[in-house]
């Protein structure tokens, strides 16, 4: 799998941060780009945490952002669903084009784009006053879906896609917090999936879980990507190597290198990448 991917992607080798082409109408023939990140800068007040990032994420793949602490990978992730600007004093500029529409366009309300771009966080955060069922259907109810049958169907499907259905199908009324850490995280994934997103952003989703919980989620990603484009931030390089098809390595706000996971890990082009991969710093 890896080699074919690698060969195919050679055709559409993504541009690095030197910013070669800005023409948004470039559509590669093989494999669509779901998310096109163009000249994105991220700021915390006056401090520039992301420096002119350019990156195109392929549809229905798992892309990993890796790099040492403070490299900006989480900041970049949060720019993709406009959560970055919710931090006081933070803002971002540039364009992030999802299926041809720039989510930073002034006429678009962030509330809407988050239907298409979901997020899962580092520590599981189910709503403690809601049951499992209510947690998963929370987003649906917000948007006024009242047909109980539809809600039940979507909840069931989301829980199945999150590999949690079998464990909770008989106790959907139990509080969300009664689950174990790993289960809660899958609950949060189900909750995000219920919104039928096209892109799922995951911010170090397994870093607070035990190894068994982590591996369950990693397994999950393999089946999830058939329907959803996944972008995952991880500080665990081995995890990136295990689950992702493409990897972007960042350092101090710059995108250093981006390519297929195989290539990045086995044949990195930049020396910095090579040093990080081999653990010389991090």
């Amino acid at each position, binding site marked *: 799998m890896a080699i074919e991917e690698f060969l195919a992607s050679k055709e559409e080798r993504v541009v690095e941060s030197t910013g070669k082409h800005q023409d948004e109408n470039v559509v590669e023939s093989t494999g669509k780009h779901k998310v096109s990140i163009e000249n994105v800068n991220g700021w915390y007040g006056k401090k520039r945490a992301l420096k002119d990032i350019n990156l195109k994420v392929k549809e229905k793949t798992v892309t990993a952002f890796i790099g040492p602490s403070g490299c900006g990978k989480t900041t970049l992730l949060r720019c993709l669903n406009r959560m970055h600007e919710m931090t006081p004093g933070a803002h971002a500029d540039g364009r992030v084009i999802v299926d041809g529409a720039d989510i930073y366009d002034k006429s678009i*309300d962030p*509330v809407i784009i988050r*239907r298409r771009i979901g997020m899962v966080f580092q520590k599981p955060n189910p709503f403690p006053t809601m049951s499992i069922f209510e947690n998963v259907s929370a987003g*649906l109810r917000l*948007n006024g*879906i009242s047909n109980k049958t*539809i809600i039940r169907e979507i909840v069931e*499907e989301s829980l199945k896609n999150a590999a949690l259905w079998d464990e909770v199908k008989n106790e959907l009324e139990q509080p969300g917090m009664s689950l174990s850490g790993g289960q809660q995280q899958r609950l949060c994934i189900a909750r995000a999936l219920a919104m*039928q997103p096209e892109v799922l952003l995951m911010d170090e989703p397994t870093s607070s879980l035990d190894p068994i919980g982590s591996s369950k989620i990693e397994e999950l990603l393999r089946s999830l990507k058939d329907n959803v484009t996944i972008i995952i931030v991880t500080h665990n390089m081995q995890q990136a190597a295990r689950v992702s098809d493409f990897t972007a390595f960042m350092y101090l706000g710059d995108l250093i290198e981006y390519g297929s996971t195989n290539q990045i890990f086995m044949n990195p082009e930049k020396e910095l990448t090579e040093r990080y991969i081999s653990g010389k710093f991090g």
Partner: protein
Amino acid sequence: MNSNNNYKKILQEAVAKKYKKRLLVDKLVTIFTVVCVIAAIIPLGSILLEVVKNGASAISFEFLTQPQGSIGSGSGGVGPAIQGTIIVVGLASLIAAPVGVLTGIYLSEFAKGGIFPNLVRFFNDVLTGLPSIVIGIVGYIVIVLSIGSFSVLAGSISLSIIMMPIVVRVTEETLKIVPHSFREAGYSLGISKAKITLFIVLPSAKNGILTGIVIAISRIAGETAPLIMTILGTSLFFTGITGPVDALPLRIWRLASQPYESAHAFGWGSALILILMILALSVGLRLLAQKRSSFKGIT
């Protein structure tokens, strides 16, 4: 998965249909909260404005030092009330502050769990919420009836009952914030608990505790109800601890109830004086705290 596309469409439709309304609701709620904030600020502004506007014209040296002239004449002042407030509140603080701080120290440093400290905490909380008129009744029965007269003592003790629980709570909470390492350093040097508390822990919590005491004093300085049945409120200056006395809040009430313009003016003037006194207390504390801390305490 086909059903997936179906659901996506359903969701898209729902989102498109509802989002205008949701954004509208969000905007309305935001406007509502802003309106409420403004609605809360307007009274404050009006109160300060009226007190200053109406009260300033009544202030004079005579106003500050003389007792009230004959009713309706507009002469004289509220000298006894100012003096009375200072005496009664001062005495109440002298009772409540040490006891309150010591109790707070007990709860934070010496209590080892078990029924007694929890009882103390519980009843302290209860005392905090008691209506001040009830405290006045207590003062009446316990002091006024025993001594036989309305008195400074009754008023002060009543006010101290109101003030003490506040000081206890602030002291305990402030002491809890002091890092344990301070105490441990003392223990490791073999110093006794009492000395550690007095010379290490307390000084570092000093600012917080003082702030709490000043807040408590400001609170009781404005209390009227307990004074009604304890000090009576005369137009004479201080005659003795067991004698009646006047106080600003009480005087304001009496003046407001009289049908004369001049009395009302005096009322506003007294209100201004009261506010200024409370303000002076808080500001005075801040200055004192700043001067003393060359070494910044914890709080």
